């Protein structure tokens, strides 16, 4: 009986220690997507959203849009997002940046927007499929796509200056809107972000 009590005591002690050890688990705090959280100083969601919104706002305020509308009896131009190249020091997910740009452009309502190269492939496949399997009155015909008037291209560049644990990161995002008819550049936008990052030389 005595031995059993002792065993129970030891087990309780182990269980107690185990729970104590478990205190330092993962903590998750839900935050608003608009809140700026800088962890490592790398390009993050806030940069992507801010840059895309400000640049697209600028693009839609410029002269090219009014000129196009005057020439085409008020018709909104059709734009396609081409390649946005990452020439920076970081592996930036350009897909989320492109998605942010597309959202900003579409929501403005000022321009029409057509699906990109990759998306178009899937839609065309679907139309071929409809041709075979869908009811005639719901079938969508081929050859009705709208050709884009302009293509938006861009690049993300960085300059990094680092000494020991201190770093200055300078991001420059360039977007260019090119007329597909004659390769004319109708708008060039630029946005810069500068970050100063200081790493600690000591830890526990």
């Amino acid at each position, binding site marked *: 009986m005595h031995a059993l009590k002792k065993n129970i005591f030891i087990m309780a002690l182990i269980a107690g220690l185990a729970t104590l050890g478990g205190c330092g688990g993962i903590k998750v705090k839900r935050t608003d997507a608009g809140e700026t959280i800088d962890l490592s100083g790398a390009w993050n969601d806030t940069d992507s959203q801010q840059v895309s919104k400000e640049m697209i706002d600028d693009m839609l305020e410029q002269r090219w849009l009014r000129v196009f509308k005057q020439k085409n009896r008020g018709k909104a131009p059709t734009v396609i997002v081409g390649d946005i190249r990452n020439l*920076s*020091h970081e*592996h930036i997910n350009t897909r989320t940046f492109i998605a942010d740009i597309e959202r900003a452009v579409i929501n403005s309502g000022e321009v029409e927007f057509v699906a990109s190269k990759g998306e178009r492939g899937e839609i065309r496949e679907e139309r071929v499929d409809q041709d075979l399997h869908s009811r005639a009155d719901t079938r969508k015909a081929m050859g009705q796509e709208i050709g884009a008037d302009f293509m938006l291209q861009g690049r993300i560049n960085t300059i990094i200056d680092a000494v020991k644990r201190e770093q200055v990161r300078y991001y420059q995002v360039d977007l260019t809107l090119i007329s597909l008819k004659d390769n004319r550049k109708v708008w060039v936008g630029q946005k810069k972000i500068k970050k100063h990052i200081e790493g600690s030389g000591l830890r*526990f």
Partner: protein
Amino acid sequence: MHINKSVFSGLPVVFAALLLGGCATYSSSFKPIEQEIVAHRPAKALELLEKQKLSGKDALLHLLNKAMLLRMMNDYSGSNAQFEMAKKYIEQFNSTSVTEQTASFLVNDSTQSFVGDPFEQIMIHIYAALNYLELNNVDAARVEALQVDVKLRKLASMNKNALLRSDPFARYLSAIIFEDMSDWSDATIAYRKAYEAYQAHSKSYSLTIPTSLKHDLLRMLDFQGLNDERDKLSKQFGISNWKSHKELRQQGEVILFLSNGLAPIKREHTVSRAGIGGQIHRISLPYYEIRKNGFSHARLYVNGSEQPIRTEIVEDINNIAQKTLAANMPAIAARTLARVITKHKTAKEAGKNHGLAGLLVNVVNVITEVADTRSWLTLPGDIHLGRLPLPPGTYNLELELVDHAGHTISRHQYKDVIVKRGRKTYLSHHWVSPAALRRK
């Protein structure tokens, strides 16, 4: 008397715990994994690596070895996911830890978080870039080239030793990537920096500046109109004929990266002496054991043609590792000596109160004194490069690995290699021979 008895009864437990935990060095625990690698079974090696489950202060070793094994299994994206985690780990743990510093002063150097030597940190970017090239993502490889530039500039601001502040192949590879992306001026600068780094390294160990680099540098200088520098180097190299930029642009180029064998392994050298007051003092220092690497060079043939190109060594990891350790040795030795003195004092203090306690502390001190033998063991001993300009088209290539006696030891076929005008096609291969298990 009662106290003595309890100390004695606790003694075997303490011994057992220490023998289990502290004694084996890292490098000796890697043997089973290594045996699977030389048998060309990277999947099996990965299984063993996962079982070893290194974490905490040794987590980086796990990430780096896993990345290399995934590469050997042709899982290049998986490999890069590990490298990205490795970079984050280094960023987080590269600072000096107060508690680990204390432990390293009292116990041994292996109590510190392993963040790798500078050359190992640079190798992460090199292999990540090679993975991206293998995935045909030159943009992402360029990101690695830029990151390595930041790292090298940082190293240059922290070190005076030419060997520790430059890395020839990192520059050379960056230049190739820049040239492939038509960044001509960046490519020229990187080729020039590669040449300077080879020169700097040749002062520390015997090294031949790759002939292909000399041609690359002359070609870019010529194209950029840097005629004075071109003429000076042309004279210095004794090369008056090279494929011009225009000629090369009309063609494509196959670039072969060959990783040869396994990197040197750290072992410990231990000296134990009976010192003052009957105490035993032990000093353990690490040294590198070079492993026998499979081939001396390789030949690349096109569709059974007679004229192969011969690969050249572009990164001599064997020598870089040894010289890096030699440069760090004064600091390692000083720390070890300081530790022996501290350990001597603790044992002496314990012995003042009770003779047996003093003995016990001394035993613990001796057992825990092991050298830090942690290093990235799945790196190759050296890296070879071969450049083969070809007209655009589809080719079957044959690779022949040749040993030091001139015998062909292995052959590999590359079927349907596509060469595009003005672009580069990348091939890479890591070959480990069973001889890698033996020391040189």
